């Protein structure tokens, strides 16, 4: 009985902490929305963050997307061979990449790369009192630090995903045509045949939401960091885990609403 009670207590504590976090993140979101248009303009910081989130994440996103497209072609080719439907590999690759794998893998990679760096940077600023210093220098830390990161991530992730979609489909093409010996004309025709514009733009909307969630969650965990280097480490881990999970969870719900 004691054991059961303790498990229930532990579970309750975790759920309680999670609900508190969600509430804080939602509050942060409302603050960002209300501060985004207020002067002074944060355009310089936004551009700087767009470089950080976008340009610097490009290599890792491209590599991930290429190999995702390649392995997808490989797997579906050997699977479709069993019932002689190899001509549909192109369609499968294109639809899976644009609708699902492009945005989700880009979101996961950005969670790891950008989420970690945002949480670590803001967490360090918190524990070294730099965030308090901002307040004493007549600056709202949410406006100065969170708004540019959220805006940049929201704008930049769809751009990353456009490139991810492109190289993912190309990766699939190369594997199918050069390794599996598929007919290049049929492959390209099949890629286009079933691909609708909606598949692409829903993927981009998802990416935008992922970017916003990753930035909000990571900034929140950085802001509440305390207890020196160890606390920053904990905040970083939490940010990466929580934003990766939120990418996958929100992906399911967005998919169920959009299709």
């Amino acid at each position, binding site marked *: 009985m004691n054991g059961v009670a303790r498990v229930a207590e532990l579970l309750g504590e975790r759920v309680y902490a999670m609900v508190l976090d969600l509430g804080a993140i939602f509050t942060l979101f409302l603050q960002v929305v209300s501060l985004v248009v207020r002067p*002074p303009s944060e355009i310089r910081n936004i551009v700087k963050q767009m470089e950080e989130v976008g340009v610097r994440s490009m290599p890792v996103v491209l590599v991930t997307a290429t190999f995702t497209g390649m392995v997808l072609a490989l797997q579906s080719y050997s699977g479709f061979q069993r019932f002689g439907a190899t001509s549909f590999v192109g369609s499968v690759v294109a639809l899976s990449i644009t609708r699902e794998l492009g945005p989700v893998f880009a979101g996961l990679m950005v969670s790891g790369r950008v989420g970690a760096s945002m949480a670590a940077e803001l967490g360090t*600023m918190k524990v070294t009192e*730099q965030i308090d210093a901002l307040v*004493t*220098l*007549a*600056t709202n830390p949410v406006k100065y630090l969170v708004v540019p990161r959220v805006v940049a991530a929201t704008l930049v992730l769809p751009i990353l995903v456009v490139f991810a979609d492109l190289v993912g489909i190309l990766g699939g093409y190369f594997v199918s045509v050069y390794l599996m010996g598929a007919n290049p004309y049929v492959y390209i025709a099949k890629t286009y045949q079933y691909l609708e514009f909606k598949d692409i733009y829903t993927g981009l909307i998802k990416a935008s939401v992922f970017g916003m969630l990753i930035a909000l969650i990571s900034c929140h965990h950085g802001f509440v960091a305390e207890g020196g280097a160890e606390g920053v480490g904990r905040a970083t881990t939490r940010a990466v885990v929580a934003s990766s999970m939120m990418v996958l969870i929100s992906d399911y719900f967005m998919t169920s609403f959009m299709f």
Partner: protein
Amino acid sequence: MIAIRGLSKRFGKKVVLDGLDLTVPKGKNTVVIGGSGTGKSVLIKCVVGLLRPEAGEIRIDGQDILRMDERELVSARRKFGMLFQASALFDSMDVGENVAFVLRRLKMYTEGHIREVVEEKLSMVGLRDIQRLMPAELSGGMKKRVGLARAIASEPDILLYDEPTTGLDPIMADVINDLIISLRETLGVTSITITHDMASAYKIADQIAMLYKGKIVEVGTPDQIRTTSNPVVAQFVQGRARGPITDESEEFVRFVSR
């Protein structure tokens, strides 16, 4: 003048400030002394509005900052400059950008004029030709002085010093003491310093207040504090291991372990 009345702040069940009263006269330096963890930092963070106390009032020139909404608070904060314990320089910016931060943020001067102001503030703390250095390249004493230059950049009426001499060698500590005195004399700022460095406290203070158990237990000039009859204050300023402060905490330890 800053008048603090009945200030109470708790974290969870732990009461840190318990109905604290303190009057900080205009143009003078008030030093708040007290042991580590007694809530000195909490006190000045309440004054500058970084923490919200549960009860009490903090009147600055008659206006209670605890009754202000966020917008009024932002403009009230422009009266303050604060020097943080570990300087809290923005480590992504060089020294010049750190000092110029609030000037650019509030667009107080034109860009050309900002450079002059930054140079002037840095020379007031005895530094020159370091605008291009990053905070990581500075020694602890230089960081403190850059932090001070940043705090005075917008010419505040009130300066708050969070343990200005902690972690510095004795000579650099005295340089900081001299700077605090000269800033008071040249700029006429009102200041609150929190410290447990008694040498520094005696040197820079016009008035010393001792914080103990969430209340100010004694206020006086440095000479009055030096020759105090209050046993708690006497133990602290003379730095003795035995006395009423440690007796009480030992009792507490015994009570817990029983």
